[in-house]
C-alpha cells in the first residue's frame, strides 16, 4: 500500500466532502487519517490516503479535475514508506490556552519557547473571537511533555511571554487513566 497526503481548500459550501470522497472511493483509495474543518470562509481538508497500486501523482490521472473545475485547490504529496505512521510520542499531555485582546504574534512566541525546550506540539488551533470592537485572539495547543518536564516548568518558561506580551496563559496537564 502506497500513501499520499491530499489537501483540498475552497470556499465553503455544502457538498465538498461528498464530491471529494466519491472520487476517492471510485479510485479505490483508503482513507487512513483525516482532518477537515472550516478556517475563515474556506473549507479545508487534509487527508492521508492509501492505495494498493498507485505510486505517484500521474497514477491519479485526471481524477481531481472535477474538483479544480469546482474552484477547489488540490495538492497531492507522495509519502515515503512509513510516512503514514504516527510517531509514538511518550509523555503526559498538556493543554495550553493563550488569549489576549490583540495579536502580538502569540503563536510564534509560545511555539518558540516550546521549541527551545524540545516540547512537541501535537495539535494547535487559533481563533479570533469576541466582537468586532473588542476582538479576542485565542490559541489552544496540545503538547506532549517528555519525561522530566512538568506543568510547572511550562508555566515558568512561558512566564516571560505572559508578562512581555500581556497575554493570559493557562497550562493544564490532562491525566491519562486506565479504566
Amino acid at each position: 500500500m502506497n500513501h499520499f497526503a491530499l489537501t483540498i481548500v475552497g470556499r465553503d459550501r455544502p457538498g465538498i466532502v461528498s464530491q471529494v470522497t466519491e472520487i476517492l472511493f471510485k479510485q479505490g483509495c483508503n482513507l487512513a487519517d483525516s482532518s477537515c474543518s472550516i478556517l475563515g470562509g474556506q473549507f479545508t481538508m487534509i487527508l492521508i490516503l492509501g492505495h494498493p497500486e498507485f505510486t505517484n501523482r500521474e497514477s491519479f490521472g485526471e481524477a481531481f479535475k472535477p474538483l479544480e473545475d469546482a474552484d477547489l485547490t488540490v495538492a497531492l504529496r507522495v509519502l515515503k514508506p512509513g510516512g503514514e505512521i504516527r510517531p509514538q510520542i511518550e509523555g503526559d499531555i498538556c493543554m495550553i490556552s493563550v488569549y489576549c485582546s490583540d495579536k502580538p504574534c502569540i503563536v510564534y512566541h509560545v511555539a518558540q519557547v516550546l521549541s527551545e525546550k524540545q516540547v512537541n506540539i501535537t495539535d494547535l488551533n487559533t481563533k479570533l473571537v469576541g466582537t468586532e470592537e473588542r476582538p479576542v485572539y485565542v490559541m489552544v495547543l496540545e503538547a506532549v511533555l517528555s519525561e522530566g518536564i512538568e506543568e510547572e516548568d511550562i508555566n515558568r518558561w512561558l512566564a516571560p511571554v505572559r508578562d512581555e506580551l500581556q497575554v493570559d496563559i493557562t497550562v493544564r496537564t490532562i491525566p491519562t487513566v486506565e479504566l
Partner: protein
Amino acid sequence: MAVRSIRIYPDPILKQVVERVEEVDETVIAVIQDLVDTMVDSGHSVGVAAPQIGELCRALVVDVSKSKLGKDNNHGLLEMVNPEIIEKSGSKMMREGCMSVPDYTGNVTRAEHIVIEFTDRAGQPRVIEANGFEAVAIQHELDHLDGMLFLDRVSSLKTDLYRRKTR
C-alpha cells in the same frame, strides 16, 4: 472465581443496554467475583463492568484506592448492582483509556461529584457520594452497562484520540 478475558470492540456485547438485575443471587455474586478477580489480575485496571467479561448483568466493580489519582479519596472496593446516578455536579476532564478499546485514549469530560445508588453484593441498597477520579471511574463503567464506550463521549478525534502511552 475466575479471571476472565476482556471483550474487545467490535464485540457486540459492548454495545448492548443491560437489563436490571431482579435479585442478587448466586449467579450475580459469581459475576461480581469474576469482575473483581479480572480487575485485580490486570494490575492497572481500576474498574470493570460485566459486559466487558461477556456477562449481560447490570453490575460493575470499581477500586481506585491503589491508583495515584484516587488513593486519597475513595470508598475502597465498590461492587455495584443496578447502579444509578441520582445527582451529579462539576466537571472534570481526563484522558480515558479502556481495556475494551486497546491502544487509544481520548479526552472525556464527566461530572466531578456524583451521588449514586446501587445494590451491593449482600443485596443491600446503598447510596454513596463519590468525587474526582472515583466518580469518573464509576461513570465510565456505568456507561458500559448502557452500551456506551468512551468513544461515544469524545468530541473531536483529532485532538481527543491519541495512541495510549505504553506502560
